[in-house]
C-alpha cells in the first residue's frame, strides 16, 4: 500500500452490504485523487473490494458514486478532493433504478 502523501484523505462510506469485507468498518479514510485510485487503494487494504465495485474501465452496472453528496455520472475518472466524502450506492438514473447485472 502506498505511503499516504496527503495530510488529509478522502473518506469512503462503505455500503452496509459490503461491510463484511471491512470487518464492519463503516468509514474508511484512504488516499486517492480519483475514484479509480481510491478503489485501487481500498482493494489493497480490503481485497475483493475492486471486484465488487468495478469492471475494467468503469463502475459495475447498478453501482453509482456520490462525491460530497452529489451524484456524478459514475465515472471512475472523477477527481476527488482530499476532504471528499465518497458513497457507493445502488445506481439510480433518469428516474430509473438500474437493474443489477
Amino acid at each position, binding site marked *: 500500500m502506498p505511503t499516504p502523501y496527503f495530510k488529509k484523505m478522502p473518506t469512503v*462510506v462503505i*455500503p*452496509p*452490504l*459490503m461491510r463484511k469485507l471491512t470487518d464492519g468498518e463503516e468509514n474508511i479514510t484512504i488516499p486517492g485523487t480519483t475514484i479509480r485510485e481510491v478503489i485501487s487503494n481500498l482493494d489493497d487494504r480490503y481485497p475483493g473490494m475492486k*471486484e*465488487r*465495485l468495478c469492471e475494467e474501465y*468503469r463502475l*459495475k*452496472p*447498478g*453501482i453509482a458514486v*456520490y*462525491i*460530497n*453528496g*452529489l*451524484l*456524478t*455520472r459514475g465515472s471512475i475518472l472523477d477527481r476527488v478532493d482530499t476532504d471528499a*466524502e465518497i*458513497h*457507493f*450506492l*445502488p*445506481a*439510480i*438514473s*433518469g*428516474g*430509473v*433504478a*438500474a*437493474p*443489477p*447485472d
Partner: protein
Amino acid sequence: MDEKKEYKVIGTRPIRHDGVDKVTGRALYGADVQMAGLLHGRVLRSPHAHARIISIDTSRAEAYPGVKGVVTAADLPEAEDRIADLGEGAVNLKYLCDNILASDKALYKGHAVAAVAATSPHIAEEACQLIDVEYEVLEPVLEVRQAMESDAPLLHDSIRTTSMGETADEPSNVASHIQHKLGDPDKGFEEADITVERDFVTGTVHQGYIEPHNATAQFNQDGHLTIWCSTQGAFTVREQVAEILQYPVSKIKVIPMEIGGGFGGKISVYIKPVAALLAKKTGKPVKVLMSRTDVFEGTGPTPASYIRVKMGATNDGKITAAEAYLAFEAGAYPGSPVGPGAMCIFAPYSIENVVIDGYDVVVNKPKTAPYRAPGAPNAAFGSESVLDEIAEKLGIDPLEIRLLNAAKEGDRRADGPVHPRIGFVETVEAAKSHPHYTAPNGKKHHGRGVASGYWFNIGLESSVTINVNADGTINLIEGSTDIGGTRSSIAMQAAEVLGIPAESVNPSVVDTNSVGYTAVTGGSRTTYATGYAAYEAAQDVKRQMIGRAAKLWEVEEANVQFADGVFSSINGKEEEISFRDLCSHLGQTGGPIVGSGTVNPGGAGGAYATHLVDVAVDEETGKVEILRYTAIQDAGRAIHPSYVEGQIQGGAVQGIGWALNEEYIYNDEGAMTNASFLDYRMPTCLDLPMIDAVIIEVPNPGHPYGVRGVGEVPIVPPLPAIANAIYDAIGVRMTELPMSPDRLLKAMGKI
C-alpha cells in the same frame, strides 16, 4: 448567487412557444406521421402470463393479402447475455431484447411475440390472428411476496440475488437486495417511548399518458435508419435501438415528434425496434401504433409493492429510529424502482438510527418502467402513514411533528449523502399558515390529512445551441422533448441572460443528428439541466457579442459590459448598443454567432412537498370524495410559474387517482381484466376540486437561477395524505392501495 435578484423574464408567465400549434391541432405527434407508401404495423401479444414458446408459424399471416412482412424474435440479432450501457442506466441486453419480442418464454400477458406490416392497420391486425404460436403454459406468479417464496415458479433460471456486487448461488426471483444503514437502529428503538409498525400493500398502476406509444421507421438502402416517434428522449431511443439491433448509432436518426405525455413511461423502447425490423424487411416506411390495451398490458407500469415500516419516537415527538422493508415487483425482468424508494423513504427527516432493506423481485407482469418519482410514492405511503399514527398517538399536531424532525442542510440521509440547502421546513411552515389548515373541518365523516414527500431529482447531460438572428432574436436548439412547457422554461433562461423577451427566443426540439447529446426528459431534470445548458449557451453568445461590440467600437473586450440587454463601453468611448441592434452588425463584425452549452450538473438539489387534503367518506358506500386540496412545494426558482403550478396540480391528481381507484386488476391466470380507460378509472375533472398549488422558492445552490426539478415530487404526498384524511374521517387506517370503495367497506366492517 443573489437570492434577492430581480429577474426580467424568469418568474413571468409568457404564452408558451408551441402553444398555437397545440391549440389548433397543428402540432404533429408521432401517430400523425403520414408519408407515401406507408405500411401499418401491429403486434401480436401473448395471451398467457407465463408460457414457454414452443413454435411460431407465420406462414398463414405472410400469405394474407395486403401483408408485406412479419417479424419475430428470430429476426433480432442474437442477444448476448451482457450488460448494455444505455447512458440512462445499464441493462442486460438479453432482457432488453426479450422484452421487445419474446424468444423462449412469454413472461406476461401482453408480451410481444410477433409483428406484422400490412397495407392497412386492419389487415395487419387480422394477420396477427393468423400467426400460429404454440405455447406450453406455465404457472404464473403475480405477487411480490409469493414470488419471493423459495417454491415460487421461477421466471428466469439465470437470476441470482445480487447484493452490492455479491451474487448468490441459487436461482431466485429476487434479483437484488440493497441496504442503507445509519447509526444503531436497535439502540434507537430502545430509546423510543412509542413504536408503531405496520404493513402496507400497493397495487400496480400505470402512468396513463393519453397518447399511446407509436413509432414510424424507414430503413434506407444505404443503411440509414430513421425513426419518428413519441419519446421522452430521442438519444436514449437511439442507444436502445442500436443495442437491440446491434447497429451503429451513427446510422440511426431519431426524430422526436411531439409527445402526448410520458411520466417516465416513454423512456423504455417497445415498438421502435419492431418498426425498424419491419421497415428493414419490407423496404417501406412502417408505422406501428399501440392500442390502449397494448399500452396497459405491454408497457411498463409502476410496481405493486409490499412495505413494512417501523418508527420509534420519544413522548415529545423526536423520532429515534426508523426501519423499512421494501419489496417491489420489477415485472418480468429485473429493475424495479426499489432503489429510489429506499433512498427517499425517510429523507424528509433527520433520524439518527435507520435501516432500510430493499428487494427487487421479478413477477409475471409487464416489466416496470419509471413513473413520476418512481418508488417514492409507494415508500411514502408507508412512512408518512406511520408518522401520522405516531403524531396522533402522542397528541402532537402532524405538521409540528414534521417540523420537529425535519431534515435541513447538513443533515445526513439514510443512504449516506448529506443534504445541501433544501426547502422542506419552508413547505411545512407554509402548510401551517395556509388558510386550508386553519379552516374548520368538523363535519361528520369529513377528514383532513397531511403528508410530505421527497424526490432527489437528477442532472445528467444536456446540450443547447443558440443561433443568433439579425433581427435580435435567437433560435434555440435543444434535445429535450417538451412534455409540459419546457420549451418555454428553457428559452426563458436564455432570454434572461441575453436581456431579451421570452418571445424573442424560437426554441426547437430537434433530432439526434442536429443537437448534442441530451438525456431524457425525466428525473425532473429538463428545466434544471437543459435550462442550465441554455444558460451556458447564452453566456457563450454573450461573450461573443461582447467581442463584436468591442470590434465595432474598436475597444478592448474587457472594456465592454453587458447589462439589461445593452452592451456598453466602460472605458474611453461612451458607446451603447442594444442586443437587438448589435445583432444587425454580425455580418460586418465577423459573421454569424453560434453559442453552445453542454452540461452534466451534479447539483440537481432535492425537492420537497407538503400536501393538505380534506375528504368526505360516504360511510354507506365507502366512496371518498376529495373536497379540498392544497399542494405546497419548493420549486427552488419557478421559471414559468404557471407550468410549475401545472406540474404540481397534475402530479397531485395522479396521486389522487393512485390513492383512490387506480390499479391493475388481475385474474388467476394473470390476465389484467381492466385494461381500458373505462375500467382503469383515472380521475376525470368531475372527481376533483381545484388544486391550490403553492410555490415556495428556496433557491437551489446547484443552478445559476436556483432551479429545482418540480415534476416528480408532487405525486409523492397524495397517497399518505389521503390515507391520513380517511383516518381522520372514519377512524380507520387504510394500509392497502388503492383505497377503493370496496376496501373501505371492508375496513369499516360493512362487508
